[in-house]
């Protein structure tokens, strides 16, 4: 057991994912590596199309058939990459669960919520219909759905967005997974509901000792909910480290740009939001060298030659940039700007 707790629960090394898009093959994820122990939380942050969801889906083994996965994904030391679907089915919803972005469409409109929450229990734990129903009511109660014993037979359209997200959380937690992947779990919700749902997820992660990978484009959500974070851009991890450390000394020009671009309370009316100039590159035609080079204010010729290596700038804090001498020196200015 002692040995088990020191071993990472999930270990991803040099993960690469190649997708077939309408614009040709695209390297959606390149050289992503991380390890997560039991009970640890990791945040993935970046703009849409940066590869954070593709990374999550490759952990779930749910990429399209045409996707080519390279590298290794290990759960408790067992290789998951290339696992046959039938074996993967025994892990999904059982040891690894996922919460999705759109609670309005993530539930099947034709099935009662009780049946949908009970489904993983019946499948993985072989519960009887009666047992599974009882457990489903208990789970719905735990996630804060009002009056679960009565509403267990209702259909998804009879619930609000926040309530539906609670239902999908109950579903994901049914079999007490070791790893929970939450892909933008609050993006589609009202601001007032967002906090409640994040608190609920945090409580449940704590209570059950799960590990969690939280995906968000919202730096605020990441700052408050995870111990470690990875910033992704163009399919690569551009910065990673303990959340506090990254926020204190952000080293990558992209991370700094993201930070500057967030709306601030107390800004004078009419103040324009800072933006990162340019657009996210198409994954099908990424620039050679640093993926951020086209938009980077600090770019030099050397940036366009080869993908920069991860540079250790602090304990466990890595930045994929060859200009950290300049960017880190400017950090103080960047943060106050």
């Amino acid at each position, binding site marked *: 057991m002692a040995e088990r707790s020191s071993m990472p629960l999930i270990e991803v090394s040099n993960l690469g994912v190649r997708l077939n898009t309408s614009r040709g093959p695209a390297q959606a994820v390149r050289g992503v590596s991380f390890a997560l122990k039991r009970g640890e939380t990791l945040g993935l942050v970046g703009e849409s199309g940066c590869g954070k969801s593709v990374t999550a889906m490759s952990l779930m083994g749910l990429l399209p058939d045409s996707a080519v996965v390279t590298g290794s994904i290990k759960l408790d030391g067992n290789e998951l990459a290339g696992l046959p679907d039938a074996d993967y*089915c025994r892990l999904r*919803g059982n040891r690894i669960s996922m919460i999705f972005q759109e609670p309005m469409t993530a539930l099947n409109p034709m099935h009662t919520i009780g049946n949908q929450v009970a*489904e993983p229990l019946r499948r993985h734990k072989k519960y009887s219909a009666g047992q599974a129903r009882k457990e489903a009511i208990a789970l719905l109660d735990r996630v804060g759905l009002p009056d679960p014993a009565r509403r267990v037979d209702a259909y998804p*359209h009879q619930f609000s967005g926040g309530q539906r997200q609670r239902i999908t959380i109950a579903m994901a937690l049914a079999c007490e997974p070791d790893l929970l992947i939450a892909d933008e779990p609050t993006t589609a919700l009202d601001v007032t509901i967002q906090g409640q749902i994040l608190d609920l997820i945090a409580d449940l992660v704590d209570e059950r000792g799960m590990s969690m990978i939280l995906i968000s484009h919202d730096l605020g959500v990441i700052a408050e909910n995870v111990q470690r974070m990875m910033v992704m851009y163009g399919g690569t991890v551009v910065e990673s480290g303990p959340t506090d450390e990254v926020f204190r000394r952000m080293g990558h020009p992209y991370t700094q740009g993201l930070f500057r671009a967030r709306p601030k309370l107390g800004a004078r009316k009419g103040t324009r939001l800072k933006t990162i100039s340019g657009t996210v590159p198409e994954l099908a035609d990424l620039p050679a060298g640093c993926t951020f080079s086209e938009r980077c204010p600090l770019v030099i010729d050397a940036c366009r030659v080869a993908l920069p290596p991860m540079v250790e700038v602090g304990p466990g804090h890595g930045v994929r940039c060859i200009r950290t001498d300049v960017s880190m020196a400017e950090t103080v200015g960047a943060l106050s700007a």
Partner: protein
Amino acid sequence: MSVFVLRRLLTLLATLVGASLIIFLVLDALPGNAAQMLMGADASPDAVRALTAKLGLDQPLAVRYLQWVKGLLIGDLGNSYVYGTPVAGLIAERLVLTIPLAIMSMAITVTLALSAGIYTAANHNKLGDVGVMSLTQVGIALPNFWFAILLVLLFAVRLQWLSAGGFAGWEDGVWPGVKSLLLPAVSLAVVQAAILARVTRSAVLEVLREDFVRTARAKGLGKREVLWSHVLRNAMIPVMTVMGLQFANLLAGTIVIENVFYLPGLGRLIFQSIANRDLIVVRNCVMLLATMVVIVNFVVDVLYALIDPRIKVHDL
């Protein structure tokens, strides 16, 4: 639920009233006097006038319409101009053939279409999908009467497994009757099945792209289980809509197919009655077909509500 059914029933009644008006007016506007047709071109004008009066054809339009509707309600459809026997009896005799033919044909259509549609969707863009979809393309292009003749050439003339036409009746048991309806049912079903298979395939493919399919997979369900337990029920709505419409097509198709196979069914009765200007038979037959189509679509509407829990709320 009962409110939903009630509203649907009212729509059904209104549709039937509209249909009866159109059928009556169109047939009335047709050129050619039934009495003249019956007595031949040489008949004396007096005799023709007497027969016209006897048949009630000299009454005003509205009176004749109301008499017909009253007859429909009490089950008295009048007598055939040509045979002189009650129309209701003529139709009943023919339905013994046409209803089993329609049911067989619909059953073949649904079986073929659902299996082909689900198979191709599950194997999207693979060889099986492309192959079966090419076959449906051919199926859609086939005129059913021509396909019927090919079937006759193969199964009746060459292999001699089935007869080329005629109806054995139900007196000698079920099998001889079914056997004589097999080729007509298949020729009616093939085109319909080809269309329905394509509808099924695209409906299933569309549902497969839904978020809840990904959720179901994330719960640990295999692709096949997701297809059966989560996808099909959602995909059935468009499929059933088309099935309802196809039923109307199928009834129209029986008119042609019953003629190809010399089957004494409703379609052949309509065909002969039109040729004989036996308009009272034509009118009642067409009204019957319209009623069947409207009722099938009513059943489809009720099935929507049974399948999709959201429909009761929106009260479609």
